[in-house]
């Protein structure tokens, strides 16, 4: 087990190199650069544009900039400087991490707490009215675009997004502020959570149905095990594939909800990343992409470890 974990951790290093290389050159393919936005500004002379380019190192070839960036990371732990904010990118990302992680984890929790029991319920009552109703709702959840669902919910609830009413922003935490947060935060959790929830529920239902028809279940029943205990074994086995899915959930929630976060006016990384991408703020974009790549790999690693812990067959193999 230890060698498995070490091996997996070591694989992360070359993977991150490959990802950084691909990401850097993908961002290079985007037409223009950071100073392109200044071209049409009559206040900025062509000489000044050249000077800004020189100062930001944008006059250097892409390969040189990429190697310099890597060198700074290895020698100083410096992921670069945001062209727009004139600050280290790590600080800017860190400032937005609190709400990003809080909302992501709450959403995942919400998805699992709702999806798993509903999936089990649906599978235990297959092809009955409630199964059809839940399946119908699940398909709506999968097919409806998140941002559109957000707009509809905001319209219906007369909400204007955000996490707090304006008078509570920046105020110290009180019960009134916490209550205000609860009044706002359910909307992003419900909206971002719904599509993933629907998918998870369908997977859980499918797994359960597979397991319910598996030979070992027949065997358990034949040996006279009470139905309650049989179900416990079925659920435990049906949960295994869900753990692999969990590994992929985190990056999805970080990066896959940009438009929704803009519509919901959330102070998270998504909209910030989107603006950085539009502004060609290259090192900010790169560091964010590297972060996503890193948590994807960590998520997968944790899922594999958890799977090994829960399933002796995997551990043995």
């Amino acid at each position, binding site marked *: 087990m230890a060698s498995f974990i070490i091996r997996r951790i070591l694989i992360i290093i070359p993977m991150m190199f490959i990802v950084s290389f691909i990401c850097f050159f993908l961002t290079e393919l985007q*037409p223009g650069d950071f100073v392109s*936005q200044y071209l*049409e500004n*009559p206040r900025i002379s062509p000489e000044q544009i050249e000077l800004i380019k020189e100062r930001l190192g944008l006059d250097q070839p892409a390969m040189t900039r990429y190697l310099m960036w890597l060198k700074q990371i290895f020698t100083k732990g410096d992921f670069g400087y945001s062209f727009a904010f004139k*600050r280290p990118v790590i600080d800017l990302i860190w*400032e937005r991490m609190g709400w990003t992680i809080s909302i992501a984890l709450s959403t995942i929790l919400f998805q699992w707490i709702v999806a798993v029991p509903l999936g089990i319920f649906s599978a235990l009552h297959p092809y009955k009215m409630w199964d059809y109703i839940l399946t119908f709702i699940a398909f709506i959840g999968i097919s409806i675009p998140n941002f559109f669902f957000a707009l509809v919910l*905001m319209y219906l609830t007369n909400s204007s997004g*955000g996490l707090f009413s*304006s008078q509570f922003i920046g105020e110290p935490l009180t019960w009134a502020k916490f209550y205000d947060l609860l009044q706002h935060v359910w909307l992003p959790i419900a909206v971002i959570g719904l599509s993933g929830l629907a998918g998870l529920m369908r997977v859980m239902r499918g797994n359960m149905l597979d397991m319910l028809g598996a030979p070992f279940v027949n065997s358990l029943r034949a040996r006279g095990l009470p139905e309650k205990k049989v179900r416990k074994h079925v659920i435990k086995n049906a949960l295994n594939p869900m753990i692999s899915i969990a590994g992929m959930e985190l990056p999805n929630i970080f990066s896959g909800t940009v438009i929704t976060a803009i519509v919901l*006016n959330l102070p998270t990384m998504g909209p910030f990343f989107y603006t950085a991408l539009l502004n060609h703020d290259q090192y900010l974009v790169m560091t964010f992409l590297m972060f996503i790549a890193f948590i994807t790999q960590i998520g997968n690693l944790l899922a594999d470890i958890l799977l090994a812990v829960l399933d002796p067959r995997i551990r043995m193999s």
Partner: protein
Amino acid sequence: MKKLVCLFTLVFFAISLMAAPAVVDELLTPEQPKLGGALTLSVTSSPQSFNFYGTLDGVAYTIAGQFLNGLVEMHPVTNALQPALAESWEVSADNKEVTFYLRDVKWSDGEPFTADDVIFTFENFLLNKFAEGNSIARFTINGEVVKFEKVNDKTLKAHLPAPYGPFFTVLSHASIYPSHILKDKIDESDPGSVNELWTTDTPLNEIVGTGPFVLDQYVVDQKVTLRKNEHYWKVDRWGNQLPYFDQLEYLVVKDAQVQSAKFRSGEIDYMTIEAVDFPVLKQMELDGGPFIVYKAQPTNPTPSPIHITFNFDAKNEELAEVFRLKNFRAAMEYALDRERIIEEVFNTLAVLGGVPVLPANKAFYNPAIEELRRGFEPDKAAAMLDEMGLVDQNGDGWRDFESGNTLEFVLISSTYQAYQDTAYIFSESLKAIGVKCELQIMDSSLRAQKALSGDFEACLWAFGNQPDPQLRKAIWSPGYSLYYCHFATMDPETKEPYADLRNMTDWEKQIHYAFEIGQTAMDPRERKVQYGIWQELYAEYVPFLYVCKGMDLMGVSKTLGNFHQTDNGSLAYAVYTMFKK
């Protein structure tokens, strides 16, 4: 003894005059105020910095504008230049020396404002080529930079290399920084380090100013709060210290729909509204909504007025040749259906305007262009093209050059909806007279790159209006870096016109001279004449087809006082004179 008393009285009078705060006029304070409360506005993104000269971010400018001031300022309604941190000034007889007498003002931390602050700001920020938002170009006359010299703590002199008409206008954009706070923070060995001052992680008590408000709190991506500056130097006509509000809040709202929802629910006190939202909001107002929706004569640089231009240096020689013909461009203007564009694209909320100088700009507008502007007359356009020999030779419905090649060109535009729609309507009008115009819609930065590298045939673009045309010289005067319809007039080495004005047509030369004379003339009447010549030449020779200018559309909470529409149709308000009723 009598003499001594007289002298003492005079000195006392002079000192009290110096110390007297500025009184804002009735235009901004028609109603007697209630003091206190908070004004809540919105911005579309977080500020990238709080350093006016370290960034080119519009949101940062909006916020910095609330806590910084310049030596002179523009009246928020009339745009007339008026004293700010400089209480008065004298201009020498040769118009090359200006002596400024500074107002007795305190920074928000209580320190006195002095001539050192002005010298410090010009040296380290405005005239520092490494400061990202520097203003070197604006303070350079005939290749030489304006110099500032301290006379004493409250007096300084500006030495101009030559008389410079827009000097006070450019000075109104020059916010002054506190040297006592920033002097020790500048790395002398790296002049570019000034960009890293007052970034968004700076403790806000280190950011001081002379403006009506001072930064109080910044919650990342959510809100910027400013509080009243107790040392602000303006009062109202009843003697109340300005601003009236104790607090000014900017909510960060990225999505326009959410912004509109917040305004409707009363969370935002006033906001600029889009033409598409106007009918709905107006209906809500008429149904008794808690706000008033204004449509006003445009006075602001934005929304930028749309223009269409043709590349005189297009790679296709046949096209370039016709684009250089005045009659072709005139025919294109006859084919431009401005009324339809105003009705369909702008919901009737746009004016023909006198772009690039707005009719509301009394200092420079030349009404003669209204007679010269060609209206929508497609038959006349077709007849003119016929006369030029551009007729359909092969019966395919499209006009051809004499060589037999089809007269066709590509019109590039950005993805912004109003631009796309305008380009489409124009192309349809051209189709009706047999001119093939293909549209190429692209990202705005790509459009800028294509246009500014001369890699286009026709282009639809928009540049904001400025109160002083000289500030737009780089765009509208031939031979400069944004006069992109005819780059052959620019020397690629210097990015300025060739010394011998090579490749310029006669009318382009006249425009060049008008801008040169307008730049050095100090007499406003003379300047108006020169820029009037330019406007007439533009209307006659149409290097740019100006389409229209969106009106100033504003939604305002009914609870706000001192926000009104003047008799000439423009909106009158200032953040420091508004109050909650």
